[in-house]
């Protein structure tokens, strides 16, 4: 039944919109659509971004793996390599600090009236994505393939049942969040 739903293009476009609206609502209510909050995180003076992200990770990790165990969801881990994930990640980080939003939160920021987000940041991300598409043929078989590990997940890497990883990761994140609260960050 759900497989049939996944292949209905018009319904999926509508679902994208219907999922985006609460996503944007949550991001704005969480305060993470604000430049000051994101820069505060990168300067390690405001831990709102980390709190939102890590509690989403714990909830989603348990939820999605439960759905998977019930045969109701399929995982889609992104493929990666050292050249792609590490170098791309560091480049992204530089842009993150200069812009003060990320590709998702900037959309929420535009929704709350941020003009530097709309005319500066969003335009920039589109131009950057276009530049990458331009140079992609020269990167795809060189640096992006350096240290390639494909669609690997941590349970596959350690060859264990996913729940053996999920449990300690959830406990570890909970402990980290408790510690952050205790320090009053």
């Amino acid at each position: 039944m759900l497989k049939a739903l996944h292949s209905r293009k018009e319904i999926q476009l509508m679902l994208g919109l219907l999922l985006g609206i609460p996503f944007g609502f949550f991001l704005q209510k969480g305060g993470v659509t604000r430049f000051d909050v994101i820069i505060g995180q990168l300067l390690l003076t405001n831990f709102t971004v980390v709190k939102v992200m890590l509690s989403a990770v714990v909830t989603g990790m348990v939820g999605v793996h439960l759905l998977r165990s019930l045969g109701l969801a399929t995982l889609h881990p992104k493929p990666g390599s050292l050249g792609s994930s590490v170098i791309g990640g560091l480049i992204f980080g530089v842009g993150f600090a200069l812009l003060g939003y990320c590709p998702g939160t900037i959309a929420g920021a535009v929704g709350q009236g941020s003009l530097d987000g709309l005319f500066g940041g969003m335009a920039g991300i589109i131009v950057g994505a276009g530049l990458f598409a331009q140079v992609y043929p020269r990167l795809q078989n060189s640096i992006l393939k350096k240290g390639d590990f494909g669609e690997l997940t941590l349970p596959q890497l350690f060859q264990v049942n996913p729940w053996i990883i999920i449990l300690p990761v959830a406990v570890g994140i909970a402990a980290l969040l408790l510690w952050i609260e205790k320090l009053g960050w």
Partner: protein
Amino acid sequence: MEWLSLKQWSPYLVGIGIGLLNCVAFLLSDKPLACSTAYSRTSGMLEGLCFGPRVAEKPYYQKFPPTIEWDWMLVFGIIIGGFISAMYSGQFRFEWVPGKWGEVFGEMPFGRWVVAFIGGTIMGIGARWANGCTSGHGISGTLQLAVSSWLAAICFFIGGIVTAMLIY
């Protein structure tokens, strides 16, 4: 319905909400919540307007076709959701320069917009280079325990923290 008009919710409540939303996305759309692909599609659509349909033959646009897809609607929905939330709490206002930037570098929009554009461009390149952003890797990928996502998410913050410390 007073909670809808609150200026801010607990970050934990918001995080749990986003985590549950991800479960719904997996269930109903067979997709994780992710944002940066939509920007590739937009750049492809704009290039197509300027240079014609041959743009779609570029290898990268073969991989991510420049058309309106689920992820594009998701980002469009985020704008609407952010707007609704800000309207409810009376926080919607046009902002030329964000507060912290104004304190450090002054209230002139031009400088801020140039830096935002440069930062956005670098971020756009990095997001496509790493094959995901703070949502696609940072939340949706890490929760699937993908090795690529944990590596990328850690590098987002290393790059971001070092750069922010140098700027401010």
